[in-house]
Structures are given as C-alpha cells and as structure tokens.
C-alpha cells in the first residue's frame, strides 16, 4: 500500500500546487456559480416531481421508488461508460506512464494506483450531481439522519464496482485491440446503445399514458412499475438499501449495504489478480505504433485545393488529414451524429394533429423556435470542433509562430475552414426539420437566412475564444470545451442566439399573422420589422469581428 500511496503523491501535489498557481478567483467563482445553479435546479426539479408523486393516490410510492431504481440504474450505466474512457486513458494512454513503469514497482500496484485516480476522476461529477436527487427523497419522505449516511455509504461501493468492472473490461480488451482504437469503439458502442434506448423509449409513446383511451396499457404500465429489477445488478443492491432506509427499515438497509461493499471488495480483488497477469502485457502492446487504417494520397488533396492560397491550402489539408487520422476525433463525430439523429427524430414524431391549437400556427411557432434550437446544436458542434482547433495545434504551435503567417491570418484561416462545413450542416439541419414540420415558405426563407448570418457569428466566437484561451499542453484538446474559455464561448453564443431570436420574434409574429389574416402592415410596423432585422444583422457582423479580434489580441500576448 505504501508504494500505491507513493504513486498517487504526484497527483496530490499537482492538485495542491494548482491552488498555489491560481491566478485569480474569477474562474473559480464562475464555475462554482454555474455548478451551484445546476445543483439547485436538479434539487428543485426532483423535489417537485416527488411532491407531485406523493399526491397520486395509491401509486405515489410505486412511482417514486421506480424513479429511484431508474436513477440508480442510469447512475450505474453512466459510471460504467465514463469509467471505461477514463481508465483507458489513465491505464494505457497517459504520457507519464513510461516514467511510472520504469520505477521499481510491481505492475499491479501501478494498476491499483491508476485505478484509484480513474475512479475518483470518473465518479466525482456523477456523485455531486445526483446527491440533490437523493436529498430531495430524504426531505420528501422526512427520513432521519440514517438515510443521509446510507446515501454516502451506498454510492461509494456503486462507484467502486462500476469503475472496477470497467477497468476489468479495459484490461481484457487492450490485450486484444490497441488502446487508442478501443476508445473510439467504446464511444461508438455507448452512443449507439443510447440512441437505440432513446428511440425505443420514444416508440413506446409514453404520452399515451395521459390518454384515457389507452387505459388498458396504463394498467400494464403500473404492473411493470411494480416489477423488481434484477437482483444481480449492483444498482439493485443500492436501490434496496436506499428504499429500506427511506421506509425506516434500517437493518434491511444495512444488509443490502453489506452486499454492496462485499461485492465492491470482491471485484477489486479480481481486478488486481487479472492486472497482475495482463496489465503490463497490454501496456507493452500499447507502446507499439499503430498501423494506419486508411491511406490517402497526398497529391489528391493538393490538386483539389490548388485554387487556394498556399497557407490556406496548407492548413486545410493539414486539418482534414489530422482530423481523419486522429481516432480521438472520431468519438466527437459519433457524439454529434447521435445529437443530430435524436434532434431530427424528435421533429418527425411531433403529434401536431392531436393539439387543440391550430396546426399551421403551431408548426410555424415550432419552426421559429427551431431556428434557435438549430443554432444551439450548431454551438454544441462548434464547441466540439472549432473551439479546440487552436489548442489542437498543441506543442507544434511553434511552427505557426515561426512561419510568415500572422496570428490574425492564422485565426481567419481556421475560421473559414470550419465555417463552410458548419454552415452546410446547420442549413441542412434547419431545412430538414422545416420540411418535417411542413412550414410556410416565409418561415423556410427566414430560417435559412437567419442561420446563414448566425453561423459565422457562432463559429467566430468558437475560434476567437479558442484562440483567447488555448490549451496547448492538454492530451485531449477536444475536451477543452469544459475549460473556462469553453464556458465563456457557450455563454456568449447562447446570449447571441437569444438576442437574435428575441429581436426577430416580434416582427416575425406580426408578418406571419398579417399573412394568415390577410391584412397589410402599417408604416410604423414596417419600421419596426426592418429596424429589428437590421439590428440583428449588425449584431451578427459584430459577433464575427469582435471575438476574432479578442482571440487575436490574447493569442499574440499568449505566445509572447
């Protein structure tokens, strides 16, 4: 154990020194503020839901307990998914592993130290943001202190079990496949499962439950609700313990708690035993260079982009090739693909025909809101691809700095590289959803034109903020979106989208109603319409220029 603690010390010291190197409190307070808002929001929603359930006669407790069981199952699945990715990184891909493996320490102890780090990294956020849900149960059910102690004592073994199971899967998988490829495979599989689950859930049409005609299915639904989950699942042990504590059956709660802890210790024992045999073998295999999956011809790209200026062509080709060859980027594509599939699917199943509000009005209202929604999807995609595009230069950024290309030109080249694909994607998204909604030509033109002017603004914010807050040393720059700069970009982009939407809402409603009811707009109304669109247009121009200038100013200072 002494060696394991020794291996964990650099991490502890780095954490301590991070506090010393802290330049200011702004970042801390910003993150803490947003985190607290989320925390309070989760608590408020879950408390409200539970209070509502309590009012449902006979079924209140069944619904609350079923919800608790589902939360624990989702909690467990999330932990498994995040632990697989974290443990893969910690055990096989971290840059300091070569140094650590050179130490006179048995490989299973290195494994154990790394596994502890991985467990903490993958679990803390899930725990922090599920605690308010469990707290709301305690408050609604007016439990004693034992329930709150039980929450902590139950969540710990659940985290340990999920992390140990994930590490075990990773230990076995790395012996068969290269570690960097496994990451893409797991992300792909995870997202595929997520989409399938989501679509199956939608196909069940839970909204039928509010329809009295479907009452027979409601009975089946409640019958299903009272069916217990599999006793082999660790989330069931946690659920049984928490349920017992909620109902005041403390001895039963202790029994299930003991079941969880014994399961946790057993799986740790199995892990260490397997690690003793397989960990170094897998690590050694990871050191071998990867064979390229696809080979592309260098000259093909050069001929295709020959009409472009040299530096622009250089960066475009470099960006495309790096993107396709870097398998860590593939997971981003899977993620975005899942987001788009779910987004489009939701529009295809909107039940307009059953709404009491006039369909044409509702369809166009949705189309208007969809503009903002598509812009938010665009923000998410920009955050994943354009925002980290400066950081992705990494340690090789000296090449840009020493080349005869100014930082301004470099940022603008990056802007145009990402603008065109993102513009095409956002237009396809908005046109496809409008077609699914069957909107009027006016709304179609409005959406297409608004997105055409908003996309450059969002992309410029991504590139500008990415340039202002680069992270050239991160092992995975695509995760820089969760940094301070990423957060600033998200906030700015949301504010910009919100402002443009508000500016357009009034005039669009007026023009749309005038069209439906067949009256003409007055002179003053026209002034309002044109004025609002003009302000939105000017805002879009500023949204391009200002972030790019800010990014340039900060990046020039950063390099010096």
């Amino acid at each position, binding site marked *: 154990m002494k060696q394991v603690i020794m291996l964990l010390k650099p991490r502890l010291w780095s954490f301590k020194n991070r506090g010393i190197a802290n330049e200011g409190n702004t970042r801390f307070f910003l993150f803490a503020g947003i985190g607290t808002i989320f925390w309070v929001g989760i608590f408020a929603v879950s408390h409200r839901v539970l209070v509502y359930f309590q009012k449902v006669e006979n079924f209140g407790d069944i619904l609350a307990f079923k919800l608790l069981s589902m939360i624990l199952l989702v909690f467990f699945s999330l932990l498994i998914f995040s632990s697989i990715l974290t443990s893969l990184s910690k055990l096989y891909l971290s840059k300091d592993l070569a140094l650590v493996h050179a130490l006179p320490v048995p490989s299973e102890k290195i494994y154990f130290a790394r596994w502890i780090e991985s467990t903490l990294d993958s679990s803390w956020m899930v725990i922090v943001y599920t605690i308010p849900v469990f707290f709301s149960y305690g408050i609604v059910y007016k439990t004693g202190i034992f329930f709150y102690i039980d929450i902590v004592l139950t969540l710990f073994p659940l985290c340990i079990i999920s992390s140990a199971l994930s590490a075990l899967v990773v230990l076995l998988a790395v012996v068969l496949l290269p570690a960097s490829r496994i990451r893409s495979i797991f992300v792909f599989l995870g997202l595929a499962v997520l989409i399938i689950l989501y679509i199956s859930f939608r196909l069940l049409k839970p909204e039928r439950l509010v329809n009295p005609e479907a009452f027979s299915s409601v009975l089946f639904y409640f019958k299903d609700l009272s069916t217990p989950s599999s006793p082999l699942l660790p989330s069931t042990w946690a659920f049984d313990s928490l349920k017992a504590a909620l109902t005041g059956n403390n001895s039963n709660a202790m029994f299930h708690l003991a079941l969880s802890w014994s399961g946790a210790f057993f799986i740790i024992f199995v892990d260490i035993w397997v690690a003793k045999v397989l960990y170094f073998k897998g690590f050694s295999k990871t050191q071998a260079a990867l064979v390229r999956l696809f080979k592309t011809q260098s000259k093909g790209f050069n001929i295709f982009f020959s009409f472009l200026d*040299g*530096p622009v062509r250089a960066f475009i*080709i470099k960006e495309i090739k*790096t993107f396709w060859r870097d398998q860590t980027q593939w997971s981003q594509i899977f993620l975005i693909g899942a987001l788009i599939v779910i987004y489009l699917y939701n529009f295809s199943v909107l039940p307009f025909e059953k709404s009491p509000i006039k369909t044409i009005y509702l369809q166009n209202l949705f189309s208007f809101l969809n503009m903002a929604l598509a812009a938010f999807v665009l923000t998410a995609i920009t955050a994943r691809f354009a925002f980290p595009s400066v950081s992705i230069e990494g340690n090789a950024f000296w090449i840009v700095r*020493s080349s*005869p*290309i100014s930082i301004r030109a470099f940022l603008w080249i990056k802007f145009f590289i990402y603008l065109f694909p993102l513009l095409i994607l956002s237009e396809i998204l908005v046109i496809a959803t409008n077609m699914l909604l069957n909107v009027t030509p006016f709304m179609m033109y409005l959406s297409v034109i608004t997105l055409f002017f908003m996309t450059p603004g969002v992309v410029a914010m991504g590139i500008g903020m990415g340039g202002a807050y680069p992270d050239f040393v991160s092992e995975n720059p695509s995760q820089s979106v969760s940094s301070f700069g990423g957060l600033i970009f998200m906030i700015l982009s949301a504010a910009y989208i919100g402002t443009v939407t508000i500016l357009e809402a009034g005039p669009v409603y007026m023009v749309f109603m005038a069209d439906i009811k067949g009256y003409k707009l007055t002179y003053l109304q026209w002034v309002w319409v044109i004025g609002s669109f003009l302000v939105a247009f000017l805002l879009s121009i500023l949204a391009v220029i200002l972030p790019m200038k800010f990014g340039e100013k900060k990046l020039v200072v950063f390099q*010096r």
Partner: protein
Amino acid sequence: MIYLKNLSKHFGNTKAVDRLNLHILPGEIFGFIGPNGAGKTTTILMMAGLLEPTEGSVTVDGIDMASQPEEAKKRIGLIPDRPFLYEKLTGMEFLMFTADLYGINLENFSEKAEKFLSIFSLLDRAHELIESYSHGMKQRLIMSAALLHDPRLIIVDEPMVGLDPKGIKIVRNLFRELSSNGTTIFMSTHTLKLAEDVCDRIGVINKGSLIATGTISDLKEAAQIRKGDLEKVFFQLTEEKNDS
C-alpha cells in the same frame, strides 16, 4: 545579416536576457554557448519572432522583426531543440505543408523535398506518419523543412540533440556547405567540440549577458588561457562571471 540591439527580456524580476548587442555577417556560422538557464533559448525565441523583447530590437536582413515579422520570418529557417510536429501527417505531407506555408513553388517541390529527405536519410520513410518516427528522425525532418524555402538565416537550438553519429556528420557538413553559399547560421549548442569545429565566431552568454564574443583565439585571450580547448575557455569565462 542579423543585428541584435540592446535586446532584453525580463520575466517579472528575472532578467533572462539583458541588453544583448550582436552583429552577425552573411555566411557566418555563429556559435552561441552558455550554461543552462543562461538565456540562449530566450534569445533564439526573440530572434525567430516567437517572443517579444522587453527592450531592444532584432533586425534580420535589414528587416525589423517587430514591425515586419512576416517578412523577416520568410528569411529564417528555425530548428528548435524539441521536435514537436504534427504527428498525424507523414514526413512528405509535413514538407508539403511547410512549402505551402512559405509559398514555395509547388512545381519544384517534389524534387527539392526528395533532395533534403535523401540528405537526411529519410526518403524511405517519407510516407509514414511522423508519430512513428524516432526523436532523431523528427529532428532530421525539422531540418529538412527548415531548409526547404532556402532561408538566408538558419537559427538552430541544440542541433545535435537526438542525432546519431551519421546525422551529426551530415549536419556538420551541411552547415559548412550552406555557409560557403552565403547562408548565415546562428547555432546555440552545448556541444563545445562542434562549436569549435564549425563556428567562425562564438558568443558566450551567462546570466542573460553576453560575456565574450569572437573567434576561438579571441575567447582564449579574454579568458587569459594560452593552451587548452573551448571547454577550458568556457569554464574559465562562466565561472569567473559566477564568482564575480
């Protein structure tokens, strides 16, 4: 070719480089030596336009680095001490990227790229990803890329780090050949034997200040040493400075 005037860089209260004055002629091979932390890399970064001086100026081929950085950089080939590259490109693709960046005529590209890859014994591995290269191979690739646009000034930080004996020999001969054709080479190194062998003049920097400049005999005179090699001169000069 290169003119450093009162060049200084301060990091907080630390004077990394302090009022450095230097004039290097075209075709000259200038060696820059000094102990760790003396200010060699900081000077190089300022010369290459990667770091803004706190005071003073850098002029390359008559062009001021502060006011016309892009023009000045076109004339420089930088070879840093650590070979950080775009790992997901092949060697040949990286050279093509560099050619595009420096506006090299693509008609001559293949011929030129192959010439340098061949000089540095990389031609066989030109179409493999850089991530599969060894440290020394990456260093050789950076050298090929730095020479691709026929720079008038080559700035090298620790040229021999990671190179095998064959690589060292190639670089040594190449520097001599380039110098005879009028290319200026500014070389920071800890390999005193190399500096002694190839440099026309040597500058010794310690604690941010240039403490001696000149030919080997000039330095011996400054260190008041009649017999002995550059190593002896180096220790004499730097230890004298440390004592004072």
